[in-house]
C-alpha cells in the first residue's frame, strides 16, 4: 500500500532519523499533545452550551450535565485537565532526568516550563467556570493570595477579580482568559517548543558527548507507533475516568455560606497548604516568595546546572535536588489534601450536632409531656390569640394552631417559645406583623407546650405523595426557587425582600410534608394569604420543599 505524499514539513518530520535509544520514555510529550487536542475539542463543545454569567453559568453546566453526551464531554474535559498536568510534570521530570535542558536546548526547556505555567493557568481559570460552591470558594482563596501581597496586592486582586469580590466580572475575565488568552499563549508556546525540538533534535537518554549516537531509523513508523499508542492510552484512560466518574458539580455558588471548606484543584493543594504553614508576617513566603523562587529556579535550571555530564551517576547534586523538590511538592500536596479532608470532617460533625434549634427528625410527641403542655396552654390562655374557634390563620392575625402538629417541627416550637422572634413582617415599613409575647418559659414548660402542639393534627393534615418527596432533590429546588423569584418576597440569610416570612431557618421550623402541600395550594392552608398561587407541578413543589428543608 502506498501512502499519498505528505506536505513538506510533515514529510521532513516523518523522515527525521531519531537516535536509536529513543524509546518509551520519549512518548510523554506526544501523549501530552494528544490530550491537549482532546481538551481543545471538548472545550469548544462545552463552549456551545456554556453561559459565562453568575446568573446562568451553573444552570448552563447543569443543562450540559443533563445531556448524557454533554456529561461525557464535560467528564473528558475535567479528567483531561488533571491528566494533562500529570503528563506535563512527568515530561518535565523526564527531561530533567536526561539533562535534556543543556545548551543548545535551554530555550526548549524555558518554553516547556512556560507551557506548564500556562496549563496551570487553564486549571485556575477553568475551576471557576461551573460556578458551584467549590468553584466560588476555591477562586475566592486563589484570588485572595495575590491580593494579600504588601502594597500592590489589593490592586492586583482588584485587577484579577475585576471587582472587590469574586462575581460576574471575575467570571467573564476568567472565561476570556480560559478560551481566548491562554489558548493563544498555549498555541504559541507549543509551536515554539516543537520548532526548537525539531531544530535541536531529540536527546538520547544518558548519552554523554563522547558517546556515539546511531541515527539510522526515521520517526515514522519506528517511533510513531509508540507515540500513537501512548496517545491512545492517555485518551482511553481519560475516557474511562469520564465514563466511570463523570465530572463533579456541586450546589450553585452561595457567597453567604459560612461553613463551606474551600478545596482548590488537587494540583494547587500544596500551594494552599503553604498558607497554613506560613501565617502572619510570614505569609508572604507562601503567597509570593517561595512560589516565585520555585518558578524562577525551574526556569533557570539550564544555567544553574553547570555539570556537562548526562549519566545519572555523574549528576548526584542535580538529581538529589530534583528528587527533593519533587518530594516537597508531593508532600505539600498530600498534606494539603489531608488538611482539607480534616476540616471537612470537622465541619460535617459541627453540622450534625443537634442544638436546641436544630431538629434532625420529628419525634413522636411524649403523651405525658403533651398533657402537661395542654394544661399550660389553658393556663396561659394561649387560645385567646390562637383560638380553636377560628379554624384558619390569616395574614396579620396570630396563626391557627389547631394543626400545628402537622405543620411545625416540635424542636423548633420549643426553641421558639423560649425566645419568640418575629417571622412575618409588614410590607411597608418592614416591622413585624404580629409579636408573640415572651412568657419567660422554662425549658421544661416550652418542651411541654411543644409536645402538646405536636399532637394537634387538626383538619389541615396535608396530603403527601411520599414517592415524590423521596425523589425530589434540593438542587433542583434551589433552581426553582430562583426561577420563580421567591426571593422577591422571602429572605434567606439576609438576601431577598422581606415581604413574606424569613426562610433562613425554615427547614427547622416547618415540616417538609406541610411545605410540599402548602406550596401547591397556599390559600387552602392560609386563606387570604398574599402568597402568590403559582402553578406548580407536584414534582416542583416536592423539589422546593426539599430545598427549603435544607435551610437550617
Amino acid at each position, binding site marked *: 500500500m502506498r501512502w499519498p505524499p505528505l506536505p513538506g514539513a510533515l514529510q521532513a518530520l516523518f523522515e527525521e532519523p531519531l537516535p536509536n535509544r529513543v524509546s518509551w520514555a520519549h512518548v510523554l510529550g506526544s501523549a501530552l499533545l494528544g490530550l491537549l487536542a482532546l481538551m481543545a475539542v471538548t472545550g469548544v*463543545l462545552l463552549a456551545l452550551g456554556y453561559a459565562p454569567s453568575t446568573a*446562568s453559568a451553573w444552570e448552563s453546566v447543569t443543562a450540559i450535565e443533563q445531556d448524557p*453526551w454533554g456529561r461525557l464531554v464535560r467528564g473528558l474535559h475535567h479528567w483531561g485537565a488533571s491528566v494533562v498536568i500529570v503528563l506535563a510534570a512527568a515530561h518535565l521530570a523526564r527531561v530533567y532526568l536526561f539533562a535534556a535542558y543543556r545548551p543548545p536546548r535551554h530555550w526548549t526547556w524555558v518554553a516547556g516550563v512556560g507551557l506548564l505555567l500556562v496549563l496551570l493557568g487553564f486549571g485556575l481559570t477553568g475551576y471557576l467556570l461551573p460556578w458551584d460552591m467549590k468553584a466560588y470558594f476555591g477562586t475566592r482563596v486563589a484570588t485572595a493570595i495575590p491580593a494579600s501581597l504588601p502594597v500592590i496586592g489589593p490592586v492586583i486582586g482588584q485587577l484579577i477579580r475585576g471587582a472587590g469580590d469574586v462575581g460576574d466580572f471575575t467570571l467573564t475575565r476568567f472565561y476570556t482568559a480560559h478560551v481566548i488568552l491562554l489558548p493563544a499563549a498555549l498555541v504559541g508556546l507549543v509551536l515554539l517548543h516543537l520548532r526548537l525540538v525539531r531544530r535541536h533534535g531529540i536527546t538520547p537518554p544518558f548519552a554523554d558527548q563522547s558517546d556515539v549516537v546511531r541515527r539510522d531509523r526515521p520517526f515514522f513508523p519506528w517511533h510513531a*507507533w509508540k507515540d*500513537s499508542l501512548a496517545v491512545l492510552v492517555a*485518551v482511553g484512560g481519560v475516557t474511562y475516568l469520564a465514563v466511570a466518574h463523570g465530572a463533579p458539580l456541586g450546589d450553585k455558588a452561595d457567597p453567604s455560606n459560612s461553613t463551606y471548606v474551600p478545596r482548590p484543584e488537587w494540583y494547587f493543594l500544596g500551594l494552599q497548604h503553604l498558607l497554613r504553614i506560613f501565617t502572619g508576617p510570614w505569609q508572604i513566603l507562601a503567597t509570593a516568595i517561595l512560589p516565585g523562587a520555585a518558578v524562577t529556579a525551574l526556569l533557570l535550571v539550564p544555567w544553574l546546572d553547570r555539570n556537562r555530564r548526562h549519566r545519572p551517576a555523574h549528576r548526584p547534586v542535580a538529581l538529589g535536588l530534583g528528587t527533593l523538590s519533587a518530594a516537597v511538592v508531593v508532600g505539600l500536596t498530600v498534606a494539603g489534601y489531608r488538611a482539607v479532608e480534616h476540616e471537612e470532617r470537622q465541619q460535617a460533625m459541627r453540622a450534625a450536632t443537634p442544638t436546641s434549634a436544630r431538629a434532625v427528625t420529628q419525634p413522636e410527641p411524649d403523651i405525658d409531656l403533651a398533657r402537661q403542655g395542654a394544661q399550660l396552654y389553658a393556663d396561659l390562655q394561649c387560645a385567646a390569640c390562637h383560638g380553636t374557634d377560628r379554624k384558619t390563620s390569616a395574614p396579620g392575625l396570630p396563626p391557627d394552631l389547631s394543626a400545628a402538629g402537622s405543620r411545625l417541627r416540635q424542636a423548633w416550637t420549643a426553641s421558639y417559645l423560649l425566645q419568640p422572634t418575629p417571622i412575618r413582617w409588614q410590607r411597608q415599613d418592614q416591622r413585624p406583623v404580629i409579636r408573640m409575647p415572651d412568657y419567660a418559659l422554662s425549658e421544661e414548660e416550652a418542651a411541654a407546650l411543644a409536645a402538646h402542639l405536636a399532637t394537634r393534627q387538626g383538619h389541615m393534615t396535608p396530603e403527601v405523595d411520599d414517592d415524590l418527596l423521596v425523589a425530589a432533590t434540593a438542587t433542583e429546588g434551589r*433552581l426553582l426557587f430562583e*426561577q420563580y423569584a421567591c426571593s422577591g418576597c422571602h429572605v434567606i440569610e439576609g438576601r431577598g425582600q422581606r415581604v413574606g416570612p424569613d426562610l433562613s431557618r425554615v427547614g427547622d421550623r416547618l415540616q417538609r410534608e406541610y411545605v410540599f402541600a402548602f406550596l401547591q395550594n397556599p390559600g387552602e392552608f392560609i386563606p387570604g394569604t398574599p402568597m402568590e398561587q403559582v402553578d406548580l407541578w407536584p414534582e416542583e413543589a416536592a423539589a422546593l420543599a426539599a430545598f427549603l428543608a435544607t435551610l437550617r
Partner: protein
Amino acid sequence: MEDSSGRRRFLSGIVVGLNAVTGLLLAVPALGYLLSPLLRARASTWVRLGPIGSFPAGQDTVVAEFSVHDDAGFTGGRVRRRAFVRRTDGGDVIALSSRCTHMGCNVSYNAGADSFECPCHGGRYDLEGNVIEGPPPRPLDRYRTRVAAGNLEIET
C-alpha cells in the same frame, strides 16, 4: 532489507490503526453531543387557561395568555404564550396557536375583520384558522383542549 520493509509496512498500519481508534474515541462523544439536540423530545403538558365559563359559547374570540416552561433554554424559566380561544354556538372549543405557519411570527386578532393577521408577510387567517390570504402554507395550528375541574385546558 525485505524484513525491514515488511516490518515498516506493518508498523505503518499499526500507527494508522491506533490513531483511528483515538480519533474514534474523540469523535463519538463530540458527534453525540453535537447531534443530541435532535434527540431532545419535548414533553407535552396541559395548561390551564381559566374557568370554562369565561369562554361563553357563540361569543367573540378570546385572547388567552398563559405561561409554559421554557424548554428552549437552560435557565428553565417560564415563557409567555398566547392562544386564540372561541366556543362555537354548539359549545365546541377552538383554541388556535398564535404562531403563523409561514415563518413563525405571532399573528394578531383583528376583531373588526374577524381574522388573524400576520405582521411579517401579510398572511391572514379566518376565525377557524384557515388561510384567507398570503403565503402561509397551512391553517393555524390547533391546540387539543379539555375541560378539567371546570377549567379549560390546552395541550402545549
